[in-house]
């Protein structure tokens, strides 16, 4: 499956300035692993030591928080949009 991953500006420093990346994978976790292979310095800002989503970001798959749909195991479809947002917001 092919999808687009949108990053906040704070993470674009780690992707040569790009805030929208193409990725492939059958799940959110596989898609995230795909872009961290290309940009290894992104990995610790998207994935924690236990292989779970990094706690200071939130992932939204087509506007839905992936924590409600299995986290990194959430399945993706062609054309999906995965948005990464800082978790330090609101209240």
């Amino acid at each position, binding site marked *: 499956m092919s999808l687009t991953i949108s990053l906040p500006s*704070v993470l674009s420093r780690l992707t040569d300035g790009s805030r929208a990346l193409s990725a492939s994978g059958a799940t959110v976790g596989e898609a995230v692993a795909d872009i961290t292979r290309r940009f290894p310095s992104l990995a610790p800002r998207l994935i924690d030591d236990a292989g779970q989503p990094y706690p200071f*970001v939130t992932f939204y798959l087509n*506007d839905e928080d992936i924590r409600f749909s299995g986290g990194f195991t959430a399945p993706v479809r062609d054309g999906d949009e995965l948005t990464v*947002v800082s978790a330090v*917001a609101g*209240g």
Partner: protein
Amino acid sequence: MTASLLAPTGEDTTGRAGFTALSLVCENCGARFDPEPSAICLTCLGPLVPVYDPNRSLPSRAEIQTRQKSLWRYHEWLPFDGTPTLSPDSGFTPLVEAPELARRLGVARAWVKNDAVSHPTLSFKDRVVSTAINAAHTFGLDVIACASTGNLANAVAAHAARAGKPAWIFIPHDLEPAKVLNTAIFAPKLVRVRGTYDDVNRLCAQVADNFGWGVVNVNLRAYYGEGSKTMAFEIIEQLGWRAPTAVVAPMAGGALVTKLHRGFRDFAAAGLFDDSLPRLYGAQASGCAPIVRLVERGSGRIEPEIPATIARSLAIGSPADGLTAARGIADTGGWAAAVSDADLVAGIRLLAETTGIFTETAGGVTTAAALHLAKTGRLGPNDEVVLCITGNGLKTLDPLVDALPPSPLIAPKLREVAALVEAA
């Protein structure tokens, strides 16, 4: 900066000379940053907080007491150097003793910290917007914005109107009508978003990243949150420079409990009171209680929820400060409680009938939670308890429409009054 300079002698909305925001430090990794409109650590993405000079000159109790009765009387603990130029007169709301409420709770004494009469928008959000809008001013950000469950929308719209700054306000599409009107009256750009508060919050995180605005609870939140500490400062001062044994406060994103904890620690470190820190108790509606459930589990991460409660101002399913709120509660030996929507309506009525204070649904949650904590032994007969009432009941009338008994309708005749008196 002296107290006299803080008097509300007129607002300078053009110049920023002599007024600067403090530097920032990451709470997670300790990295330091120059003052900037960012709440996120560039290194680890953790939350930033202001850095206070530990060697700065601090005022005595007597000196504080000579100052203007606003939150700026505590300016040494707020994140700026110099004289604030905007919103000079919010804060210093009444601390009202509530003996009948204490009797109902079975505690020694009780007080209501009454931010339901906060100037100018009748909620504690006037405190945080006062610091955020001054931060925006120091950074030259002319457009102010927020994601809100209602009270923050009211406050941002009002403070921005007074400052002459454009405001963009984003709210869930189905907020209480009074909260929508209490925002729209100030003529901001008010945008209703199809979705929950958490959807609105995610959108505003993206807005802050793309438009260069001062989104008070996103890129200005390092400065915004500090305003909440002043509620703790006022409680200590208004009790005669001593601490209560317990404080009960509502939790939405968890920032208020987090900042109450920090505020009490700030004043203890400054030697402004000698007692132990009060035990902090957090209150949520059971239809949206991710922080309560984290406290009950004792460790781990916040597990987000989809809100289902009439306490709309507390309906944040993914609370950004949930973890730090839970830590503050644990560090002080407190606890957390969730109450049903029926109980929160009863809480609104109990507070009104025992104190003469009309609160919104969040205050009903706080009052009902205090009652629950008392019934379950978390609050005891020796406790001196402060309830933080953060918003006004006139903003959330709908839940009460069917909850109150109908009033009798009579002809203007004395005998009909006599009949009512006899039946009473």
